[in-house]
């Protein structure tokens, strides 16, 4: 089987630095290290352009170059004959390489020195294995096709968005074997992502927000690309930075309460991939590990396959929830009469933030939904609701039809489960749910 660029992808993880030989217009050779060789497609690679170097000057004069790479497991060496095509200084390829370079820099003790100026795209004209005593091949990747098939079958069986997202994190845990994972949904109006499900953290972090462009999750969302980091880096160590930021702000009751972002304190490897339904960004799937180099190109492929399947299934389920509400499912809990001490609930109208007693619960659209449900309970004694009725309610200010109401309800239901078990949302059928109020409530509104 002839060597292909695809078969060398393990060489492009940045674990062992690559070298490039170039030649000036007047024929003087030059040789230099390259921090990052990035797999673009079966015919192209991109090299990190970090400094205005002789290499840079040479390839602009004479595009033919030779790259030497080493397989990080076997020590096998390969020679790539390449031809410089262009430099990208923004966009998905650039962002992806920038994040990865931050991890490589951290691994090499070069944080702050390695900065990406551009992604130099080269066409690969030939690949040759260099004679040598390579070690035995590493074991095949963990994410194989058989496992993927099983995962996809389980995802296809999901009956609503909540079970789809739970199944996604379940299959990542078993059979794939990842312990720290989360799903964030995209809020197209507020330009942010909010955590709706997680596994493996002391605090679930449901409701924690990330802005597009912020950290590896935000970059994956903004550029709609998979982003991986193989070694802990302060630059992209957003989980940690955000937690510290949240801590430094202290617990200040007020409008800008935030839910701390979950995350591993000693995270070494991170991967974030976009969940897309066609062109539309639904959310981001994120996983991390304390093991350096845990996520390679093969894992990235596996994540992309799972995420695109989740995007497609979720679009189908969304269509279903937009249709008229279905019959009540069997086994639903009957409404109960509130009892016990009264629950004081405050709403700040400025941003729909809701406090239970003195504790912040939620804000935004999910906050508006909760307030609407509480008022229905107090004013009309109603407990059964439909998605359609919420969608049409102007007090909730759902931004537009693309708004994923179902995801908001999941967020709200989980936040209540964690922080206020006296209020409970129970799905009672397709597009309908019951709002259980177990204690009497006293509502107070703080005008904007």
């Amino acid at each position: 089987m002839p060597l292909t660029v695809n078969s060398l992808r393990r060489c492009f993880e940045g674990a062992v630095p690559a070298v490039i030989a170039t030649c000036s217009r007047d024929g003087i050779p030059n040789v230099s290290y390259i921090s990052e060789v990035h797999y673009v497609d079966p015919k192209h690679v991109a090299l990190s352009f970090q400094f205005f170097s002789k290499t840079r000057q040479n390839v602009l004069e004479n595009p033919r170059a030779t790259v030497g790479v080493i397989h990080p497991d076997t020590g096998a060496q390969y020679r790539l004959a390449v031809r410089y095509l262009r430099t990208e200084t923004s966009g998905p390829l650039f962002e992806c390489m920038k994040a990865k370079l931050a991890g490589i820099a951290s691994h090499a003790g070069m944080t702050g020195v390695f900065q990406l100026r551009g992604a130099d795209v080269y066409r690969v004209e030939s690949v040759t294995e260099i004679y040598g005593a390579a070690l035995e091949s590493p074991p095949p990747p963990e994410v194989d096709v058989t496992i993927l098939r099983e995962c996809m079958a389980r995802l296809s069986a999901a009956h609503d968005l909540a079970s789809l997202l739970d199944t996604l994190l379940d299959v990542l845990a078993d059979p794939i074997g990842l312990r720290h994972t989360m799903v964030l949904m995209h809020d197209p109006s507020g330009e942010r992502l909010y955590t709706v499900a997680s596994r493996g953290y002391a605090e679930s972090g449901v409701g924690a927000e990330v802005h597009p462009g912020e950290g590896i999750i935000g970059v994956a969302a903004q550029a709609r690309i998979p982003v991986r980091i193989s070694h802990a880096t302060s630059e992209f160590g957003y989980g940690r930075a955000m937690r510290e930021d949240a801590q430094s702000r202290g617990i200040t009751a007020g409008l800008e309460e935030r839910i701390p972002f979950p995350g591993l304190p000693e995270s070494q490897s991170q991967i974030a991939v976009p969940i897309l339904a066609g062109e539309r960004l639904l959310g981001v799937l994120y996983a991390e590990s304390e093991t350096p180099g845990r996520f390679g190109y093969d894992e990235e492929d596996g994540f992309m396959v799972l995420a695109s399947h989740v995007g497609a299934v979720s679009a189908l389920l969304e269509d279903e929830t937009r249709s008229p509400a279905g019959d009540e499912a069997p086994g639903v809990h009957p409404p109960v009469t509130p009892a016990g001490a009264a629950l004081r609930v405050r709403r700040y109208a400025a941003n729909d933030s809701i406090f239970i007693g003195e504790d912040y619960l939620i804000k935004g659209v999910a906050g508006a939904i909760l307030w609407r449900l509480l008022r229905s309970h107090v004013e009309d004694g109603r407990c059964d609701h439909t998605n359609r009725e919420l969608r049409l309610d102007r007090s909730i200010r759902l931004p537009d039809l693309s708004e994923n109401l179902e995801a908001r309800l999941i967020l709200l239901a989980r936040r209540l489960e964690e922080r206020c078990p006296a209020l409970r949302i129970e799905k009672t059928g397709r597009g309908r749910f019951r709002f259980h109020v177990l204690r009497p409530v006293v509502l107070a509104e703080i005008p904007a």
Partner: protein
Amino acid sequence: MRAMNAVSSRSQLLDAAHAAFIQGPVSVIVASRNAEQVPDVVRGCGCRVSRDRRQVTVLIEPARASSLLDDVAGNGLIAVVFSQPSTHRTIQLKGDDARVVPVTAADRAAVRRHQQQWCADLASIGYGPAFAVAVHGGAGQLAAIRFTPTAAFQQTPGPGAGQPLRG
């Protein structure tokens, strides 16, 4: 070419510290180019500096080189990067009188010593001995390329990379 001219001379470019550095536990990456201006590169497995520090000999395994030995024999052009894996300290030497010379017993001894030192440096940053030995090579047939450095550059990653070497 400008940078090259700035320090270009047949005078002694390497001081004792540089000479020790390039004969120490450094990766040796050797490049030349062919008549069509296509560059080639091969990983070397050792280096020796002459007593007067005017000549540098790099050792490579011919089996690992594609056209490099022919290219060097044809045009005498060479660029060699020396970089210590654990520190990233890097320098590049260039020459235009490179030629293939017979391998001596001292060259073979230098390759054996280089393999031990280089593998120890890699071990200090977490690479296992089997991996390091596989990458290093040098157990088979060797070839020696000798040249007079006419230009030397500091190439440690950072803002100073590419500057002519100062003693």
